């Protein structure tokens, strides 16, 4: 949200969808990595976090 929008009180709009996609890709990569790590942990140790 740009400062001008804050000043004017208008509805914020994405400046560019390109960077939103990039952020979405980054988020997706992180989520996928977390899911993969969680799968591996559960597959190997039977739990997501602490050792039984």
């Amino acid at each position: 949200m740009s400062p001008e929008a804050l000043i004017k009180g208008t509805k914020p709009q994405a400046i560019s969808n390109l960077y939103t996609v990039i952020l979405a890709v980054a988020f997706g990569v992180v989520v996928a990595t977390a899911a993969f790590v969680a799968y591996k942990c559960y597959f190997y140790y039977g739990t997501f976090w602490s050792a039984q």
Partner: protein
Amino acid sequence: MSNLTKILIVLLTLSSIMLCGIVVTYVANADNFKEKYERTNSLQASAQQEKESLSTQLKEKIQQNDEREKSDKDQIAKLKIQADELNAKLNASTRQVNELIERTNSFAATTKDFQATTEKQAQLLASAQEEVKQLKAEQIKLTKELEQTSTAVVEKTALLEAAEADKRRLVEEKADLQNRMDKMLQGGARVAAAGGPVTQERGKAIAAAQTITDSSNIKGLISEIDAKRSWAALSIGQADGVKEGMKFHVTRGDEFICDLLIVDVDTDKAAGVLELVQQSPKVGDNASTIL
């Protein structure tokens, strides 16, 4: 949107991608430690069990070895005692063997000396027997010579007696003739009757020798023998001219066996004592008064 925000978005995206790739790579290559732990734990448990069983076996083996060691020590002690006893027996046996060897050597030496002495005595005995044989032969010869001399003496005595009888007869004839001559010289024409001498003319001494010769020519055979009492019997007796005191010479072929002195005479047999026995007489040996 400022440029800085854009740059930050791009850097955030790139860094997140890079870090997520690193994380994914690490997690994908990470080992399963739980599985490893369980495997190792099971191996440890089995190793522990094996250790316990091995320790149990080791204890049993140690006990068995201790028991064996004890029994072996006992056996070793017993065997040592037996070995000592056997050594003592061996020493005693060795001493006995040495004593026996010494005795054997002494016996052998004694036996050698005894054999040498026996050989010497045998030689002396043989020489003595030879001398006895020679003396017996000489005795027999002397006996024969004595008998011949006795016969000659008897002959000479008979001749002497005959000569003395002739002498007495001649003396008597001389005295008779002297009486006749005295009577004739005294004037008597008496002719003395022819008178014979008082002493009769005797036979020749040869006749006596002939009688002796005839009596010494008696021959017979040995009919019985009693070797224990040195007695023997002859097959001839008083009817053949055998008398007590006669001596017969027993021969076998040309060998002289013994003499037989007659002590008992029967009509057709006689018995006597064996003398000068050279060999044992047998039934059938010749016996004669002259060799």
